């Protein structure tokens, strides 16, 4: 039964290998890609079903008993993340097939896409700190290539920043894993948690925690380590940046939550305070950065940062309600943010640009697209009854409960500024009359977008509505997941079999 946990890794791997075998035939690669991502979506749903009904599932790879081999663990939190990853992978692939230039697709887009998904799933599943490093690298190297696919001049600046900062963070992570192994003699996360709980607090462990914190902070784009993100996310093809926007930073957030709730629990107060301060600064710098931008995808990139701030804030409060809010926020954010990036790609394919000053009049010409934009945009800003409202509400409520009024005030302010950014895009791109003669020549080449690009956008929008309308059961689920995260004993028991 537990062997199922390997499926979200195996499906992308197989698909990637098969795609490599048919390098020249794009159509075969597309079919394999669709089947592969659909299969992993099915497997993650099934894993979630089992985890939900039977509790945490553990797979000891190669049948090596727990602290010695590599362990895969699926608790509720990681199985929710798995579903989101494979769902995003599936829907974005539909969009990518019809939107990415076939020349770029030929340069290994499909295999890399699958390797990226494999890395993300692996990072969510693994229960071994070094294995986490390996999955991070699998994910990173495929994202490096996807980011510069095509090799245009505009992609270079962001790519250099993205690659060098992420490599630096991986090195810090590796050093941290090395110290942990030297100190405890184990790499298994449950075993680390168990052993470190018995050790006295030491400078070595605390400095390791800082290394991990910086490493994951860079990957999650936390203040002041976010500079690579807004410089790189607006340059690749829309489908690729949508996938990055939805998944990659959330892997960093997942790693922060996992390590600081499970492994480094000794000196938690200090780190939670640091997180608290950083979360406020992350929210503010993200949203203020967005306010000064004039390019749709750049605005959205900066909003990723401000939203990461919300998630980190919930982690920093570290109450069951706040953590449930964080998990709910991640669910909401992945779906909404991916969708907004996909829509920006449609706008780009219509006008050839995403500069707000050069586009306009979309509402008259494309009413369906406008509605589909309005749903995720206002959900991002937190308008009820859309999903973002409940996500923000639960975090703010959690903050009120523990008297963190300053953070609550900041997050409300950030909510208002998010609304400002979204209405800016709405009024500039959709409501404003299209400038006629004076505008740039790219507008002459205005094309129609393909209907297949609208399908995933519509599905994401429906999901956003559903999360908003059925917020209660999803919040219940997030609460259960948060309860598991807050109780490392259960995790340790399932992995090691000790209380």
């Amino acid at each position, binding site marked *: 039964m537990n062997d199922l946990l390997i499926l979200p890794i195996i499906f992308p791997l197989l698909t990637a290998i098969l795609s490599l075998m048919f390098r020249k035939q794009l159509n075969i690669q597309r079919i394999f890609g669709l089947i592969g991502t659909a299969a992993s979506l099915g497997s993650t749903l099934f894993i979630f079903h089992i985890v939900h009904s039977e509790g945490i599932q553990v797979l000891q790879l190669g049948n090596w008993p727990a602290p010695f081999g590599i362990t895969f663990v699926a608790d509720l939190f990681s199985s929710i993340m798995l579903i989101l990853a494979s769902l995003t992978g599936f829907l974005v692939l539909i969009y990518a097939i019809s939107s990415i230039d076939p020349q770029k697709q030929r340069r290994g887009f499909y295999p890399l896409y699958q390797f990226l998904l494999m890395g993300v799933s692996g990072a969510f599943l693994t229960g071994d700190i070094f294995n986490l490093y390996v999955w991070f690298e699998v994910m990173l190297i495929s994202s*490096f290539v996807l980011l510069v696919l095509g090799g245009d001049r505009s992609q*270079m600046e962001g790519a250099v920043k993205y690659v*060098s900062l992420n*490599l630096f963070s991986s090195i810090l992570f590796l050093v941290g894993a090395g110290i942990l192994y030297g100190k405890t003699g184990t790499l298994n996360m449950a075993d680390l948690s168990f052993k470190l709980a018995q050790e006295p607090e030491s400078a070595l462990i605390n400095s390791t925690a800082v290394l991990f914190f910086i490493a994951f902070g860079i990957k999650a784009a936390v203040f002041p380590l976010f500079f690579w993100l807004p410089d790189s996310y607006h340059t690749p093809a829309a489908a690729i940046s949508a996938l990055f926007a939805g998944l990659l930073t959330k892997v960093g957030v997942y790693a922060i939550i996992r390590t600081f709730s499970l492994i480094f629990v000794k000196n938690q107060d200090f780190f939670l305070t640091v997180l608290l301060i950083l979360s406020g600064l992350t929210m503010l710098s993200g949203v203020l950065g967005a306010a000064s931008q004039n390019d749709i995808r750049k605005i959205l990139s900066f909003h990723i940062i401000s939203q990461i701030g919300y998630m980190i804030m919930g982690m920093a409060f570290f109450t069951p309600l706040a953590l449930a809010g964080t998990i709910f926020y991640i669910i909401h954010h992945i779906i909404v943010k991916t969708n907004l990036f996909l829509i920006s790609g449609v706008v780009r394919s219509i006008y050839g640009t995403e500069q707000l000053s050069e586009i306009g009049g979309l509402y008259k010409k494309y009413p369906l697209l406008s509605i589909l934009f309005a749903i995720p945009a206002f959900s991002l800003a937190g308008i009820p009854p859309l999903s973002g409202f409940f996500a923000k509400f639960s975090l703010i409520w959690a903050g009120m409960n523990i008297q963190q009024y300053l953070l609550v005030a900041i997050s409300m302010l950030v909510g208002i500024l998010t609304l400002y950014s979204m209405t800016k895009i709405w009024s500039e791109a959709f409501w404003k009359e299209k400038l006629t003669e004076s505008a740039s020549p790219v507008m002459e080449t205005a094309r129609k977008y393909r209907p297949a690009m609208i399908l995933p956008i519509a599905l994401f929008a429906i999901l956003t509505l559903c999360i908003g309308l059925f917020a209660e059961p999803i919040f219940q689920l997030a609460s259960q997941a948060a309860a598991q995260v807050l109780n490392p004993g259960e995790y340790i028991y399932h992995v090691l079999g000790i209380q």
Partner: protein
Amino acid sequence: MEFMYALLASVLFAAGIYSILRRSLVKLLIGIILLSQSANLYIFIAGGLTPASPPLIQESNQALIQPYADPLPQALILTAIVISFGVVAFFLVLLKRVYQVVQTDDLDDLRGTD
């Protein structure tokens, strides 16, 4: 012995940091290489240095007896070396492409080319 290794690792780390703070693209790459070498060396030291005692079970014994060299850090380092090899190879190609399309080796000149 361990002190010398630790010194070497820290010198490599410092040199790596110094290099990535330079403006040249090639020095950035060299810095990343030095840093990853330093990280590998660090794992090696953190795992404990046990000279001249291979992790092999003697014929007369059933299990390993102390002291023996821990093989796991070496396995980790091997993995890390392979990964950094791949990543550096990619980075090298990326830098070549950057130089081709932007015609500069200076990171400051990259600003605003997107």
